[in-house]
């Protein structure tokens, strides 16, 4: 089963929920943890994985062979991302804008364009206790997150996991990096906070997961600090509130230090196991569940 943790708004506690869910279930089932927030990955700060392998992620960008180029400018006209500028005497590639679609190389009438890999980020894989771990990082100044997210999603595929659980820590927002992170999940947990910001962005995130057809439930973090509007919204929309984590300064202080809430606060270990029971129960009752997914048992 693949469970993604997303939020719309940043800083609501995605990583906290994802990391502590993984820790609460560690040992009870095979777990892999994919930190797909490749712009600002944070899960490693809490899980302290031993990194075993590191690989560069690259994108094929065009290289123009000046000796073959006749300056016709077709490449610049077909490039939807404005990554090629053609002048009669020279053709200039702007690799930062290139999405790697391959159109220019395919369509150049002179065969003057080849592609060469440009590094846009890296993926690291390793182990944190019994948890298989992968995360990625975009290169500084490299704007394209989705290909790096995709590489993280595929990083542990070769290992196979049988009936285990994959937890995906998604980036904030609702645009392409989030889609690349949560697409194909069996369930999406939306972490929010009980404030107008949390509510507004939860509404956007719900719109996204519904468009992607992913069943979702909500975790309200820092419950009690704001107002009741998030709970009211969830009941109006028929979205289950899976867990409320009460606002408590001692939780915030533990998080600040990079601590693990489930180790320091046994009540939260129980709460996160309860979260998993609700997620897996919803997977079993859902019509889309594939075979293997029903094997996920009680813990």
């Amino acid at each position: 089963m693949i469970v993604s943790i997303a939020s719309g708004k940043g800083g609501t506690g995605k990583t906290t929920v994802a990391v502590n869910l993984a820790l609460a279930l560690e040992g009870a089932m095979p777990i892999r943890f994919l930190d797909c927030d490749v712009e600002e990955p944070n899960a490693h700060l809490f899980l302290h994985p031993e990194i075993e392998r590191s690989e560069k992620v690259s994108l094929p960008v065009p290289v123009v062979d000046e000796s073959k180029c006749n300056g016709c400018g077709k490449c610049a006209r077909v490039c939807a991302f404005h990554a090629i500028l053609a002048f009669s005497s020279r053709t200039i590639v702007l690799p930062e804008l290139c999405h790697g679609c391959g159109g220019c190389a395919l369509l150049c009438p002179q065969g003057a364009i080849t592609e060469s890999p440009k590094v846009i980020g890296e993926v690291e894989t390793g182990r944190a206790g019994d948890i298989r771990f992968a995360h990625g990082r975009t290169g500084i100044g490299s704007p394209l997150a989705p290909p790096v997210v995709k590489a993280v999603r595929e990083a542990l595929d070769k290992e196979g996991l049988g009936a285990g659980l994959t937890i995906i820590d998604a980036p904030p927002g609702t645009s392409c990096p989030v889609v690349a992170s949560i697409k194909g999940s069996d369930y999406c947990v939306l972490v929010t906070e009980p404030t107008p910001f949390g509510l507004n962005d939860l509404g956007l995130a719900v719109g996204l997961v519904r468009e992607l057809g992913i069943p979702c439930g909500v975790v309200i973090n820092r419950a009690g600090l704001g107002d009741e509007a998030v709970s009211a919204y969830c009941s109006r929309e028929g979205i289950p509130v899976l867990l409320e984590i009460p606002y408590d300064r001692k939780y915030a202080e533990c998080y600040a230090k990079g601590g693990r809430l489930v180790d320091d606060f046994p009540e939260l270990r129980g709460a996160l196991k309860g979260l998993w029971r609700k997620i897996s129960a919803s997977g079993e009752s859902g019509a889309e569940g594939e075979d293997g997914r029903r094997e996920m048992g009680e813990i």
Partner: protein
Amino acid sequence: MISGKGGTGKTSVVASFAALAENKVLVDCDVDAADLHLLLSPEVVESHEFMASRQATVDVSRCTGCGHCSEVCRFGAIAMAYGHPTIDPISCEGCTVCSHICPEGAITMVDVMSGHWYVSHTRFGPMVHAKLKAAEENSGKLVSQVRRKAREIAESQGHELIITDGPPGVGCPVISSISGVDLALIVTEPTVAGVHDMERVLDLTCHFGVESAVCINKCDLDEANAERIEDYCCARGIEIAGKIPFDEEMVRAVVRGEPPVLYGDGAPDCAGPDSVAGEAAQAIRQLWDRVAVLLARDAGSF
């Protein structure tokens, strides 16, 4: 205003600056999860559709089912089913390669409405903001669009300052948000994640040669991490422009839909220097005073 990590308090600080600064235009560049409007209650005066992406569509009557389109698509957006291609609009990046390669000319590109952008009135001045539709791309282009409009308004109406609420992360919309700014104020928090993400975002501002200063929000949450931030910034020659203590008033202000710096004044429109404000509000006022000095110094250097 950027942060790397989300939820560090960018929007609360921007809304407070909106109340404190004079003669400015406000911009919300967090186009996929915009929140500034919740504190500034804008009245929309102009609404525009944002058309930046295009999507492939197949004319089934011309399609022979050869499958070339599906072979050349690198985004996995075209699946062949029952002899004809179907296009997944979420995966399609609008690269147009399929439309060029189709031997029958059966694929055309159609414009897609990816969101809206708005020009609004607020009690603190004009505001430009946007809403990208869920699962859409081109957030960087939408950011450029709202920034261009804000600059136009600033120039035509004689506003000297543009205050921008940026998105989290270090990717495409963040790069669009900081290009050509006079100062990037990085709002961070003394948590291990806050420190890590601030370092990445400072790498980004340095990479693009953008002048930066740092503000530590919730500075008393963890003294050791707050010190780490100060030491790190000191070593890189980055000024700590302010420190805001953790204060539940900040949350209450958000719940009331008001800039935190005005919350508790009773008469939000006439917050004077003698208004009774919480610790956080006072710290934000000091932060603004310092930022104003940095901006004036910057303006003077031209």
